[in-house]
């Protein structure tokens, strides 16, 4: 590896390490020496960190270091964890992600249930969704869309990283999503109860 390449790797590594937000290729281009092949540098860096406790990932259109998922159980001993999103919120989020921009009424039609204030508040508090204009229909209802924080939260580089609808429906009797009757005893399930 040339000295120039090593130096470019060090600068890119430091820049992504120091930032709070994903670092865009454009930002890297201003920091790295002119004529640096940003893709090559970031590719080499990704490989260098692939097996480490910290990984380089592409999220929200930029680069960010994150701890490796398999280390999480160790870190949870010392890190205070936020509450995971309840199923209702996850489903609402999924509808917004796939149908954006989408009105509240449209969300309710797809889920076949009313959208509670608590669910909307939860998504807004976590900055996962945001209003994005109004639909030019009677009443001019607010349109909802996902945010860059949504991409960062789920480690997506782009909305196109979401699986296609057809891919989702390959296994109609898929295991995970079946609602367990037992879930009624979870507090979040009551939120949306008719």
């Amino acid at each position, binding site marked *: 590896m040339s000295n120039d390449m090593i130096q470019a790797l060090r600068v890119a590594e430091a820049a992504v*390490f*120091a*930032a*709070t937000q994903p670092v865009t290729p454009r930002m890297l281009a201003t920091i790295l020496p002119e004529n640096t092949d940003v893709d090559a540098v970031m590719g080499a860096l990704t490989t260098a960190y692939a097996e480490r406790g910290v990984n380089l990932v592409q999220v929200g259109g930029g680069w*960010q*270091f*994150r*701890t*490796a*998922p398999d280390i*999480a159980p160790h*870190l949870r001993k010392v*890190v205070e*964890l*936020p509450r*995971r999103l309840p*199923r*209702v919120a*996850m*489903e609402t*989020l*999924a*509808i917004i*992600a*796939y149908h954006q921009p989408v009105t509240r009424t449209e969300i309710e039609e*797809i*889920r*076949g*249930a*009313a959208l509670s204030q608590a669910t909307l508040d939860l998504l807004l508090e976590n900055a996962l969704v945001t209003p994005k204009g109004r639909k030019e229909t009677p009443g001019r209802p607010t349109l909802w869309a996902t945010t860059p924080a949504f991409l*960062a*939260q*789920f*480690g*997506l580089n782009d909305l196109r990283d*979401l*699986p296609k*609808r057809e891919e*989702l*429906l390959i296994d*109609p*009797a*898929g295991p*995970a*999503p*079946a*609602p367990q*009757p037992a*879930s*009624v005893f979870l507090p979040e*399930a*009551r939120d*949306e*109860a*008719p």
Partner: protein
Amino acid sequence: METEALVLHLEGYDGPLDLLLELARTQKVDIAKISILQLVEQFLAVIEGARRVRLELAADWLVMAAWLTWLKSRLLVPQLGEPEDVELAAETLAARLIDLQATRQAAAWLGQRPQLGWDVFPRGEPEDFTETDRSKLKLDLAGLLSAYLAARRRAGAKQRYRPKPMVYLSVREALDRIGKLLGALPDWASLEQFLPEGLEEGIPKRAAIAATLIAGLEMAKDGRLNLRQDRKFGPILVSNRTELEAGDE
């Protein structure tokens, strides 16, 4: 079919569509190929069971039940209605169930992603190399103008307008001065000698001259003194009338 459990746990379902999807899933076939009739019967059975336990069942459950009852009757006796309508209704219901199923899969897919702040963590203590340059000024014309107006308004509110006090010599004061000074001055004294001392040049002095002249004319009319001006714009001279008369006579 765990009808009893479903009845008891109806509130666990997020609306009628949620329950329908769950019932469809229990048929263990592709949702696109489920028997709508069988599904409707199961749903109505669950709702009927629930109504026996709880009479107050939310409106949207009952609306769905009513609509499904209609659909069931048409499915059983197709010749009563227009077959296309019934087929369309059944297809719409199946499509909505597929949509909900897709949504559920998408939510599950998102849910198993490593989530930031739970499964993966960003750098806890980022370093900031940003320096702030505050040397430049941010100024705008609107700010300048409003500052000017504010200054003028405030100054105006503080000091109310008062006319400048009159410092000019009044005719009454001039009468007093001439009366007091008349005996002490030499005969035919200049009118200007009756002016108070320390008058400012310009308007105050000219005003005093005018007042003294008016006072002099007033006293001449009363016969208390004599006024004389030898030529146009020449000095006006004043003398004690009584003394003059005595001299003349």
